[in-house]
């Protein structure tokens, strides 16, 4: 596929596979992921730890170290160029200049022995050249743009002198100083308090409107996604299991995993006696289950699910789901307890009990 630099999506990932060759076997952390990001668009990438969302992000900017490897055949087409085939020195120009990166932990993303002004100015000097004064000027201006008060003085401070929210603003300033077309934000607000999180999300929105940047927002927090992204990709077991416009995903999630995530989340203003749970936990990437990778935790699973690996079915406009329910929707009515073999536990709750009441039992069986 040939892209010219203005038409088509900004980023097109095709069959991305990133494997880690460990002693325990080959960990297929990202296993055939394809998606696109349009210009000026915010895409949310959600999933629990171990689902492959961060490895996907790091693969896009090729920050994968041995024993990890981006498998041949993976394509990361950015603005018409396949990043997977670039040399390391070409790649270095892409990072920071074309693709900015905001990490989760602002304290480890910053160098403690340089002032924040120096660190932002360095990015400018590396990618743009020019004089030290010019770079410093741009750094100070960028600090002002991300809402740091008295930026001239703050630029002379070290990371430890700043609060968590301020540090994350500095990291965002570093990611944006070269005005990249795409910013990858990996859990940018996870380490922050909720009031500071609201400030940072607001800032990202403002900056996006100002610069027209595309954002890939990686998070486990569905609330953050609902407020920020226009399209959502849900990952599980190294694969995309569902993708939909944000309103549609929250109104009518198709994949049982997405459904489970939405139900498991307590929400302010919603009273619930018990939280729904997804039994068990994410399987290890060295040993994904056969068939559907979610089948042993799925309340709807039937024989087909443990045998046949589901493809991505089209559910609606821009809505895809990796679940056989797309072909056999009537089975959604027959929810049952995944993995419940025999039942013990308090009060002798049995299989016939209503959902919710029996959650506890299925949970216990599944964890063991």
């Amino acid at each position: 596929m040939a892209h010219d630099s203005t038409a088509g999506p900004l980023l097109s990932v095709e069959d991305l596979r990133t494997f880690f060759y460990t002693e325990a076997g080959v960990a297929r952390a990202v296993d055939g992921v394809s998606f696109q990001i349009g210009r000026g668009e915010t895409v949310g990438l959600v999933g629990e730890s171990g689902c492959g969302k961060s490895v996907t992000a790091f693969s896009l900017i090729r920050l994968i170290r041995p024993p990890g490897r981006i498998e041949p055949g993976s394509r990361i087409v950015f603005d018409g160029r396949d990043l997977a085939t670039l040399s390391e020195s070409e790649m270095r120009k892409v990072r920071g200049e074309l693709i900015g990166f905001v990490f989760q932990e602002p304290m480890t993303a910053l160098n403690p022995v340089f002032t924040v002004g120096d660190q932002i100015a360095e990015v400018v000097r590396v990618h743009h050249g020019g004089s030290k004064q010019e770079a410093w000027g741009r750094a100070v201006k960028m600090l002002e743009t991300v809402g740091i008060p008295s930026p001239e003085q703050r630029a002379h401070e070290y990371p430890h002198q700043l609060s968590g929210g301020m540090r994350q603003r500095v990291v965002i300033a570093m990611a944006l100083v070269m005005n990249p077309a795409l910013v990858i934000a990996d859990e940018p607000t996870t380490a922050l308090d909720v009031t500071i999180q609201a400030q940072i999300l607001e800032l990202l929105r403002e900056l996006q409107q100002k610069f027209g940047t595309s954002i890939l927002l990686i998070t486990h927090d569905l609330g953050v996604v609902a407020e920020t992204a226009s399209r959502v990709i849900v990952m599980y077991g190294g694969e995309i299991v569902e993708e939909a416009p944000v309103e549609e995903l929250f109104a009518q999630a198709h994949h049982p995993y997405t459904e489970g995530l939405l139900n498991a989340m307590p929400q302010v203003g919603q009273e619930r006696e018990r939280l729904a749970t997804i039994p068990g936990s994410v399987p290890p990437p060295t040993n994904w289950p056969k068939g559907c990778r979610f089948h042993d935790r799925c309340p709807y699973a039937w024989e087909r699910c443990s045998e046949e690996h589901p493809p991505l079915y089209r559910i609606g406009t821009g809505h895809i789901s990796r679940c056989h329910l797309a072909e056999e929707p009537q089975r959604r009515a027959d929810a049952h307890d995944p993995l419940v073999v025999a039942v013990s536990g308090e009060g002798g709750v049995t299989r016939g009990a209503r959902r919710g009441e029996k959650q506890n039992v299925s949970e216990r069986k599944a964890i063991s």
Partner: protein
Amino acid sequence: MTQPAREVLVKPSASAPLLSVRSLAKYFPIKKGLFGKAAGFVRAVDGVSFDVMPGETLGLVGESGCGKSTTGRMILRLIEPTAGSVEFDGIDLVKLSNKEMRKLRRKIQVIFQDPFSSLNPRMTVGAIIREGLTIHKLAEGSAADARVRQLLDEVGLRSEYVNRYPHEFSGGQRQRIGIARALAVEPSFIVCDEPVSALDVSVQAQVINLMQDLQRDRGLAYLFIAHDLSVVEHIADRVAVMYLGKIVELASSADLYREPLMPYTQALLSAVPVADPTVKKSRVVLTGDVPSPANPPSGCVFHPRCQHPAKDAACTEIVPPLEEKAPGHWAACIKQPPTGVDWSIQKAAGATHPPERFLPVLDR
């Protein structure tokens, strides 16, 4: 001009509380110079009072650095309080010797946030759970073995796991081990310090349900410390909100989330992202950061960031008492009526705006 903080009694009902915390404070000295002379104090917790009833869950929320964990640790006497009292079942824990306290820890247990660092990596799961039984001489030999297996079963882990080590378990499973360890000595009160913050959403739901089941079956009381307001709303009967070492609001979970009265609580709740893209929230966005507890603002500690329309000079002078604004609903704000701080007192402190009811619309 500042008033001394009044002694406040916060009692939800007539029955006797299991735990009564009164005017609890912890000032950490800031040491300067060669001989470590205290140059000032960080007021991590500054006069906190509350009750926990038997079988109740009291949520303690606030942003990092507000003193919520320090409060929890003082109750356990893992940190020695600077002032105040912690009465448990009629005994003032602050006055106990270490030896007496150790005996009482059977009744007061703790579950920590990080299931990776709170379990000894060199001990098997069985030994971790059994340790409390041995120390408190509750069971030994095969009786202890049986008890450990039973506890594992109760928290939803297979009893064959007794000889495994913590690293063999996932985060959620480790948190279950931590819960089993706390339950082993049959406590009546558990301080839960961010017990689900490190867990994924689906696993978090499993652990919350487990904690609720155990509470129901055993009549446990929890002090549930967390920063996640939606989790606290779900699990807590009453909620205390802390800001800069002080409780600024305390009410039943339903009242607090429906009608927060203290402007800080209003801002905190409005900042919680809503997992519904069709909701467009009118948000109270706080500017700036939490001030340093080494040098807290005068008067109301929240005044520099407060958005109450009646905020004026009096807020910088008068320390707002935690007062009952509605039955069982306590809040510290002299501008939110009703208030016991008379208008004449407020005026003397430079007030220009009389108190007015402020309830920003929190669309949900």
